[in-house]
Every structure is written in structure tokens, then in C-alpha cells.
């Protein structure tokens, strides 16, 4: 199979058949998104990198067990998220202390980059501080709640998709999201109050007025630089 051809399922099948390049192609399609989920779920770049690597190895070796009952990307996410959660549980990671203001948790440098170089330094500082506060608050949640919120509110997965990834009932995802948001509403009260006065920007992820955590419209990650998940089957 050509390295750049085929659906996710075809690439996985080709890998099982012995294609030397298929898995690399498949994983490359999704690794940025998997990294994002791993990073936000763990709240720690080192743990995220370990979890992503461990998940990749597991997926490589367990490709033959893929049954096709979920999209390949869901299957990949499940493996990586589980690897991350297992690491958190095993290491009992608690990162209560905030990261240094000038170091992004991705290890790439500035916490918030001034994309066009024209942003007011003061505004830049405010955005960085807001970001830091949100990430700090997120890290204070239980890992299972954090994972649910990362998938639904950050990555834009539907509740059903998140449930498939987390291998739990949809109601469990809703519950985790609800409780996680309740906790964050307390932790982020100053930001919320400030936003209420000045910001009427539409929600970028799921629609806020939906009765539960998931919108009914077709779902996917917020449109951005990262690749959208594919659902070949």
C-alpha cells in the first residue's frame, strides 16, 4: 500500500498484513491530536510524552485486535488516553504548583505566542495569565474528569465518542463533565466574572446552551491547525 493512501482502517489492516510503512502513516495522521489530548489529560509534558509513546507501542502491537467496532481514531485515542491515565494513577501525579510563567507546558517556549508580533505586550501578558490559571485549575481535577472535559470541551468530541474513547457509559461522561465544570466554575470564578463583563465571544467548542455536554450537530474537534479525526467506517 502506498504510504499516503488508504483510510485509517486500510492502513491498520495493511500494517497487520506486514506493510512496513502503514502504521507510521496512520499514526502520523493523528499524533498531533493525540498529543493534544495526552498533554491536556495529564497536564504534564513528560507524562504526556510517555503516555503517547506507550500508547503508540500498544497500538502497533495490538493492531490485530482491532475489531472495527469503532473508528480507528477512536481506538487510537482510547489506547493513548488509557496509557496516560494509567501513568497518572501509577505515579499519583499531582502538579499543584503552577508552571513557570515563561515556560509552556509543551516545552516549546512562551506560554502564549504573539502570533503576529503586533499584540500589545500587556494584552499578551493577560492572555498568558488566563491560560495559566485555566490549566492550573484543570490539573486540579481528578484525572477521569479531566480526560472527559478534554475530549468534550476542548477537542469537541461528542459524548458518545468520548464514552467510546474512555470505555465508559455516556452517562458517566456527562457526569464527569458536569462535576468537572462545577469544580472549575469555583476555581475560575475570577475569570468567569471578568468574562461576563467584557466577553460575549461564542463558545468555540460545544454549544453552551445544550441541555447536556454534547451538541447534536455533527461533531469533531474545533477547526484549527490539527487534523480532524477520520471515521472511515
Amino acid at each position, binding site marked *: 500500500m502506498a504510504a499516503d493512501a488508504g483510510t485509517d482502517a486500510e492502513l491498520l489492516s495493511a500494517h497487520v498484513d506486514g506493510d*512496513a510503512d502503514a502504521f507510521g502513516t496512520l499514526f502520523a495522521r493523528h*499524533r498531533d491530536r493525540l498529543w493534544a489530548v495526552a498533554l491536556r489529560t495529564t497536564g504534564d509534558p513528560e507524562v504526556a510524552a510517555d503516555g503517547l509513546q506507550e500508547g*503508540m*507501542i500498544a497500538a502497533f502491537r495490538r493492531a490485530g*485486535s482491532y475489531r472495527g467496532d469503532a473508528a480507528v481514531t477512536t481506538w487510537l485515542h482510547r489506547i493513548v488516553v488509557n496509557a496516560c491515565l494509567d501513568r497518572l494513577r501509577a505515579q499519583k501525579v499531582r502538579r499543584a504548583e503552577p508552571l513557570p510563567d515563561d515556560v509552556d507546558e509543551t*516545552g516549546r517556549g512562551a506560554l502564549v505566542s504573539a502570533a503576529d508580533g503586533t499584540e500589545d505586550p500587556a494584552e499578551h501578558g493577560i492572555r498568558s495569565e488566563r491560560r495559566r490559571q485555566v490549566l492550573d485549575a484543570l490539573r486540579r481535577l481528578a484525572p477521569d474528569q479531566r480526560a472527559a472535559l478534554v475530549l468534550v470541551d476542548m477537542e469537541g468530541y461528542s459524548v458518545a465518542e468520548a464514552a467510546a474513547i474512555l470505555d465508559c457509559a455516556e452517562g458517566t461522561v456527562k457526569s464527569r463533565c458536569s462535576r*468537572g465544570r462545577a469544580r472549575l466554575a*469555583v476555581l475560575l470564578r475570577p*475569570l468567569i466574572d471578568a468574562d461576563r463583563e467584557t466577553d460575549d465571544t461564542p*463558545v468555540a467548542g460545544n454549544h453552551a446552551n445544550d441541555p447536556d455536554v454534547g451538541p447534536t450537530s455533527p461533531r469533531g474537534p474545533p477547526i484549527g491547525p490539527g487534523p480532524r479525526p477520520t471515521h472511515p467506517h
Partner: protein
Amino acid sequence: MTPTDDADQQAPQPSPEDEAAVRRLLAGVREAGPVPPAVAARLDDTLAGLAGARTADGAPVADVVPLAPRRRRRAAALLVAAAAVVVGGIAISSHGSSGEDAGSTSADSAVSREPGADAEVSGAKDYSGGGGGDSITPHDRTKAPTRSDLNALKSVASARVRPGHLVPDLKALRHGFARQVGRSAYSADAPVAPDGFRCAPARYGHGVLLGVRYGGRPAVVAFRIPKGDTQVVEVLQCGTADVLRSTTIPAG
């Protein structure tokens, strides 16, 4: 604060507006960038190592056995041994014997499933209900593989099926027995394998079942009864009957 559910239960339910604000804040910190170069390099190195560790015929995935219910582990102790014996034993115990099988040896019945084996693997897939092209008519079920069937099948069992050459290998396997067995051969529900072949019992369904090595490991290839010009063939996991591969080949 402690990241526990107990602490969360104390948090008051936020208003819809507050919940929307929280979701907006979360969406605003979504990680949208690529994997950092250092992490990407690490992944690439790991992937290269995995690829390099592949066996010569390129089959690492067979090293991972799908998880099975714990009860199946007990069944794993019940190893199927010699081939002809297994098929003969099952056929006799399940359906009685036709004329040619009346002369089965004592070893035939000795390797029929041990008591409780069916219960142990009851959670395994049952292919006998159709859907896999393996339906057998009541008339077929009254027949058991004949001695000549068993001999023909035993001569081709334990072949190597390469994951990367699945269809050609299966076709070659079929070619080895197709002209030598009758329809009764498809009534078997236990694999034919040579002496020393170890494969735990499971509900493999009816068909021509052969013990093979798939990706370097024991597996069962199930040739379901032909339908028209085609025939479904499955590679099944020993002990669980989980489908490792499935394909359709010409029946002619």
C-alpha cells in the same frame, strides 16, 4: 485542593451561564500545535525500533493475544492434540457415526472434548448460525468427516499462513485438500492438526478446520462451507475463536 470526586461533590452546580463560561475557557486553552520536535523524534525512533523488531515475515501483531474472559483461561488447559483424533472424536460424540467412522479408534473418542469444555468456552463466538457462509444443512450435520477426509486434511494441516500473503496461502491450502474431501468434511467443529500441535478448544464453528501457524503462532483456519462460487475463510485465535482475519476466496 485534592483531585478527588469527594471534593467535586461539594462543588455547587454552576448556572448555565457559568458552565458556558467554563467551557469557553477550556476551549480557549486547547492545544492546537504539533507534537514538539523532541517528542516527535522520540516517537519516530521508537517506531523505527518497532518496525525493525518485526519478524522476517512481518507479523508482530500476532504476538498480542486478544483478552479473553477469565473462564477461557481454564479452557486453555484443555489442549487439542492430534488431528484426526479430534475431528473424529467430536463428530462421533456430537452426531453419531456414519458407516466409515464406525471404525474410529479409541484415540478418536479419547480426544473428544472433555466434560465441561463447552461450558467453558460458551462465550466464544458461534459461527454455526450462519453469517459467515458456514451454514450446514441438517443433512450435512448428520454426516461426519470421513476417514479419507481426515487423512486428506491432516496432510495439509499445520501449514504456515503468512499475514502478508493471506489469500495466496489460503488458496494454496484449499488447493491441497479441495479435491480430496467431500462435503461431509465441512461438518467438523474441531480442527485437524498434526501430532504435537497445541491449540486450546473453542467454538470454531463448522467447516473444514485446520490447525496452522499464523504469524508464527498456532491458529485455526476455518474454511466455511462454500456458497455458490465463493467461500468464506477465517483465521481464528486458538482457545477463543476470535477472528484474526477473514476473507472470501473462490470456491472453485
